[in-house]
């Protein structure tokens, strides 16, 4: 077991998509990263927006999985559609909002979770093609991430969810650590994304064991359970958001500013909101009252 717990932080950072995102965010070119002796705070400051962007891109990849459209992420997963989809419906922002409001994960819970996840998943023998050539900056990123986690008692759930999807995504397809778009999960095909959810929903028995072994009662099953809950919730919420009025609702006037994408897609309320319908067809067999 001890042997299994040792894991490669470089591999981890790469697999959650941070390395790629940091590169895209220009973080790797920043002086602090290039010269590790510079104050780590600089990197920490730069890391936060990179993490946010990573979460946003991953949630975009998730949104179009549930409701594809004409956007680049839908194209990347091989399901381009001519009519609007989740990107046009604002679903990525809907998901980020929801995850932010759902609950922040306390660091004390997250640490064993991350350790356990990485342990179990790195055992799967994933070979990351670009890892060998990585510069030393990963060590700096690692330190910065540790620092960021230390300074905050909690980690935003969007980052956790994105890390989870990306980590599993790179297990499904190691080459997804690099490429176009901003996250490994977004680089998968529709079928590969489905495989990611199959892994999350039925975590390897090993993974469940490691997740729960770290925690005493009454926390038993809390982490593996949370994983299963999250796996389901991400899909349900993406579906709900895509077909709701979220993106075009003016909360002050409590009115729509445009027709919701989901209404157009489904044909709901063709002439806008109503107070009622002429849908009354009488009573079945003419019976309006029963007794006994």
């Amino acid at each position, binding site marked *: 077991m001890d042997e299994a717990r040792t894991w490669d932080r470089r591999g981890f950072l790469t697999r959650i998509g941070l390395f790629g995102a940091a590169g895209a965010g220009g973080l790797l070119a920043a002086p602090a990263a290039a010269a590790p002796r510079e104050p780590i705070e600089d990197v920490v400051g730069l890391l936060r927006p990179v993490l946010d962007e990573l979460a946003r891109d991953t949630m975009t990849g998730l949104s179009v999985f549930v409701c594809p459209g004409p956007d680049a992420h839908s194209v990347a997963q091989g399901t381009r559609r001519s009519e609007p989809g989740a990107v046009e419906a604002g679903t990525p922002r809907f998901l980020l909002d929801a995850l932010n409001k759902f609950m922040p994960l306390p660091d004390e819970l997250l640490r064993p979770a991350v350790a356990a996840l990485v342990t179990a998943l790195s055992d799967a023998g994933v070979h990351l093609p670009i890892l060998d050539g990585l510069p030393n900056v990963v060590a700096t990123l690692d330190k910065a991430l540790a620092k960021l986690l230390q300074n905050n008692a909690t980690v935003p759930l969007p980052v956790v969810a994105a890390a989870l999807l990306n980590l599993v995504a790179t297990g499904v397809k190691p080459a997804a650590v690099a490429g176009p778009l901003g996250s490994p999960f977004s680089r998968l095909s529709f079928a590969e994304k*489905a495989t990611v959810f199959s892994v999350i929903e039925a975590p390897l028995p090993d993974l469940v064991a490691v997740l729960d072994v770290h925690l005493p009662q009454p926390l038993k099953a809390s982490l593996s359970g949370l994983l299963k809950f999250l796996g389901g919730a991400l899909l349900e919420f993406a579906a709900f958001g895509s077909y709701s009025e979220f993106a075009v609702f003016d909360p002050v006037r*409590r009115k729509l500013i445009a027709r919701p994408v989901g209404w157009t897609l489904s044909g709901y309320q063709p002439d806008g909101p109503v107070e009622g319908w002429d849908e009354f067809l009488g*009573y079945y067999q003419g019976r309006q009252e029963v007794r006994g």
Partner: protein
Amino acid sequence: MRDVIVVGAGAGGPVVAKELAAKGLDVLVLEAGPRHADPRAEWTSFENDANNPLTGFLRLGPTDRTRPAWFRELPQNSFVWQVSGVGGTTQHFYGNYPRPYPGVFDDYTGPDAAAYDIQHRFPFGFRELLPYLEWVEATAPVATAAMGHKEQTFFRGCESLGLPVQTTKTTREASYRPQQNAVLQPHGTAGRSADTDLLHYPRATGCTFCGYCFQGCMRPVGAPRNQYAKRSTDNSYVPMALTADAWARGGKPSTLITDAYVTRIHAETRNGKLTASGVTWKDNTTETEHREDARVVVLAGGCVENPRLWLNSGLPNPNDWVGRGVTDHFLDWVVGVFDDPVGNPKGVGSAARADFPSKGGLENVGVPPALHAFAMNFSDSGIHGHYANGRGPVGPWDGPAGRLTGPMLKDLMSGRLENLLSVVVLTDDDVQPENRVVRSGLPLGDEHGPVPKVQMWGRKRTRRTLENREFLARRAAEVIRGAGAKRVYRIDWAPLLLHIQSSMRMGGSERDSVLDSDAQSRAVRGLYIADTSALANALGGPNPTLTTQALATRTAEKIFAEHFGGDPWVYADNPVVSTDPRITVRLGQLGL
């Protein structure tokens, strides 16, 4: 010192408040959530604005929507759909008021008696509950539901199976029928016009067929609160409790305080017995704590909150049944695609059902697009066409069960929301001690103490429960196909807790129940439970509110007799209907 404190203004609490207020008792109702006193100014009928469980105006949380919702830990793929505020979860509900199956009561001797959850029957007879069911039916009021196209389609499917039509209120055999609904029937222009200008009260009365049940009922436009079509308790029992002096001789209006979160039940030893003495509650807005004492405390915070409050208060749990035995009708969803519109989501949420005593029931449901998309993505069987998560049952539906997502979801919804007929499976599920509410160990306690953790086994149900669910899912698919659907899909829902029962169950045996047959706690005298958690079992599958309210009416009588020396009234009096003009007038005087 109050006579009675009621914790929670959902389906059950306001019933006790209304009944005892009518008898002149001093009743305080404490509700953790908001009071939506002016829905037209506060609500819309948009799905995210209303139903988003984290931010919607119908959510489990305080009035201030910028503050977080109250967290529940769910250690499995599942979802609990509960609402705080005056009306509780009935703000979402569809007003279906079927009677329970007689087979779940201890006086049942029918030939199929052994086919029910016989270990966990009600500790009294159906015949004893009947007058209370009738009392609630007259108060709500309950009526035979009108048809729209989705009902017509459902009935066509039932006809094709050769099932008989039920023409009584009590179900005695496998059959189908229009629902008995706590929904005011359409009159005037209601249901006959889509023209907004014509749908104002009193030109329109009763249900306007808007299809917005889930988002809360505020129709017809301009109707007084107690004339809104759907009889959620914010429209029925709460107005009655607040105006008791107007319609009951000697009645005393209840006091209602909202944003008042009860965090502790107090008990002390009196005459050698642990006895409830009062509660502590926290004002969500000012964050101040208050204490109120009473002769009787009635818990009605719902199936998830009651066990948490009990355990957080350190009340005794001698047989370890507090929070155990949760039933949820192990719901499932089957959807059919038709060539032509079948009226979804117009009309009352659900106005047709089929019953299969000892197995459960089916009902048609209309839902708007976001909820429909949610419903089709909520599964324990993976993703249709990709993976089955170790399940993916096959049957008279197309392909293995599972989520409909991505391009498939889009094709299904594509301009065709009106062409979908959805049917919910309501399983008669067994009370199982492993399905339970405990206190979460996550370091996520909110300002009200450790949060509840709801543990529901999606797969390890009893054989009877699993067989019932398979039977019903098959019948659902046959009904939909019989009605002419071209394609039929089964989702195989993970536990979706819309109907939650029996977490503080009453029972005949001290070994596996929290409440005695009067709904009084076995461990703490003067402490009663009056919501769905008090039910002994899953009722056989029928929606729980009618039975919960009938039981709460009976409990009010028991409280009045044991603690205030009064006589029962349900056998002797006539009920007042909640639409009574005296209530309307008094609500107007009170500015409600």
